[in-house]
């Protein structure tokens, strides 16, 4: 019962702030709503028992990536608002309608296609829940070691690329 209340509250908040992100006039407000959205998603991860992923979400996403967005927004603070001329070829209302149709389709597939697991999965004991970090770490360093190393090289490449792109002279 508590889980239902928590899930529905978090779902409403996540979707509400996501809508605010895409509809806010001021870009800085948009970024702030995105941060709050990510914090509620981290809370959802805690509800699902993925505590390590929740803190990683806050540290990397909310506390790193969005700070980067905020910096760029401040460096790019224009005198005139960017959405001044309406492009005549853009059909915003059609995009909205098509998106709602897509949502209805995916929702229908998700609800009617969901198969309960055959073997009843045992409820999580407190001891197993506390071992989330160990489980994730074990997987990362044994089965998924190669993707792990490749991810670190990817981040290095991205860092070098970002520094070069943002410099004043090459």
């Amino acid at each position, binding site marked *: 019962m508590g889980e239902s209340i928590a*899930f529905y509250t978090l779902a409403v908040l996540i*979707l509400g702030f996501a809508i605010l992100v*895409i509809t806010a006039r001021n870009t800085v407000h948009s970024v702030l709503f995105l941060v709050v959205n990510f914090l509620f998603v981290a809370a959802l991860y805690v509800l*699902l028992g993925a505590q390590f992923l929740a803190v990683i979400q806050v540290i990397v*996403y909310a506390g790193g990536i969005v700070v980067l967005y905020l910096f760029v927004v401040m460096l*790019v603070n224009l005198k005139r608002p960017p959405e001044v001329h309406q492009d005549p070829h853009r059909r915003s209302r059609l995009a909205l309608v098509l998106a709602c149709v897509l949502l209805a389709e995916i929702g229908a597939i998700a609800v009617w296609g969901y198969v309960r697991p055959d073997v009843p999965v045992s409820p999580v004991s407190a001891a197993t829940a506390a071992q989330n970090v160990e489980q994730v770490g074990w997987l990362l360093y044994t089965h998924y070691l190669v*993707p792990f190393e490749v991810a670190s090289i990817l981040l290095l490449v*991205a860092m070098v690329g970002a520094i070069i792109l943002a410099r004043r002279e090459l």
Partner: protein
Amino acid sequence: MITPAHYTVLSAALFVIGMIGVLVRRNIIVIFMSIELMLNAVNINLVAYSSQWRDATGQVFAIFIICVAAAEAAVGLGIILAFYRNKETVNIDEMNLMRW
């Protein structure tokens, strides 16, 4: 009783909201942020099923998605800055020159 189907519907809704943001908004920074919303939607789905099957593989996949999102955000914002320095705009309708 909250099943992973609930989480999938939430994830689909968040994904579609991100998609609307990408299609409708013209400020390129807001478009990038909508892409981040879509990536988060995928993460929610992965973690929900990982929680159902008591297998941490879904969370590991989500960690890799966060890594890739970080790399993409860094490089993308670098591109935006470089472009802004040349053309003084962040409206994608004005970013329409394939050559100078």
